[in-house]
């Protein structure tokens, strides 16, 4: 009886130690980091300007005009206190982390779900077997 209880307890503990898949805990930084991009206006624009030096390129000039318009719009929004900005549908960002931290979206925990299922089925079989044998 004691051996049975010990065996079941060890299995439960193994399950407990390894079953943790709270997404916020087990997700790597890369996954969680996708949502943390800065909207600090000067930095982002500086970054954009430092990466793209296409002086003389007519297409890029048009792009710079667009970037200028975007900058002006953001500055207007900042002045007026209206900080709302729009992301593409389905894009992971700081406002939608809760959405993408659900199991259906976090593929890296699917393997853990499968592992837990196998362990639980094994446990169910063991408990049924031992409780039946004990009764006989």
């Amino acid at each position, binding site marked *: 009886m004691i051996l049975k209880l010990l065996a079941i307890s060890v299995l*439960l503990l193994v399950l407990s130690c390894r079953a943790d898949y709270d997404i916020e805990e087990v997700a790597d930084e890369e996954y969680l980091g996708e949502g943390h991009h800065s909207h600090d206006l000067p930095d982002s624009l500086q970054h954009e300007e430092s990466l793209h030096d296409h002086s003389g390129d007519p297409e890029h000039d048009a792009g710079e005009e667009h970037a200028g318009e975007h900058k002006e719009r953001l500055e207007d929004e900042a002045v007026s206190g209206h900080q709302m900005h729009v992301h593409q549908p389905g894009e992971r960002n700081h406002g939608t982390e809760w959405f993408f931290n659900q199991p259906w979206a976090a593929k890296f925990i699917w393997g853990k779900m*499968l592992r837990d*299922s196998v362990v639980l089925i094994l446990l*169910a079989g063991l408990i049924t077997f031992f*409780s039946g044998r*004990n009764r006989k």
Partner: protein
Amino acid sequence: MKPVMTFALMTMRSLVRRRTIWGISIVILLALIGIGQVPGYGTTNQGRFIIDFGLFGLEVGAFLLAVGLASNIYPRDRERRTIMPIIAVPLSRGEYLMGRFLGAAIVQAAAILVGCIGLMIVLIMKNHAVPPDLFPASLLLVVEGWFLLAVVFFFSFWTSPPLNAPLTLFLFIVSQMSVLDFVKLVPGVPGLMRVIRLLLPHMDVFHIKDPITHGMDIPGLYFLLAVLYGLSYMAFMLSVALAVFRKRDLK
């Protein structure tokens, strides 16, 4: 297997004759109709709210059905002493549990699927598109309901029916919490709280209403994994319930 199926059908028929199942089903359908009547005030996303609240209503309905259907089965059999002749000859205790569980599971699944069809009708009547994943989402709620049913059977073998409902409700609520949130309930013993929480399922596995309302596709593999996850937890709870039931003195 045949005796179990026969006993399951007997259980199903006796449950359908009870008023509990009809009362809960009517409440679920009235709630769905009520959700459909909430005015949209011209917003374009009214369909999302109907699906979101509708699936939440079905989940709560699954919990109510589990408690309403199963919490009285074993105590009533024991009180009326009908359990003695049943397990004396034709059925073992395991077959008794499986028969009772299967009968209640069939009734519960049928009630939730009727609720899903009701939700579809509400969406169509309000001129909203019915998402293709609505039916699989309801199937996941059925699996969640079966797990709760197994929990109710487990509690019914060693507690009274009035205590069964709050215990199952507590487990239902706790299973919705993340490990971190659960540990914060009693921060003094984080290790123990962590072990307790990790033994319980992550109910959010069965919740896919958010992507459905936003029109996102769910991979078929995820459905299979979630169903397997729910069924394995159900099997685990049933095995624990059987171990307790085998120890019970029925005299």
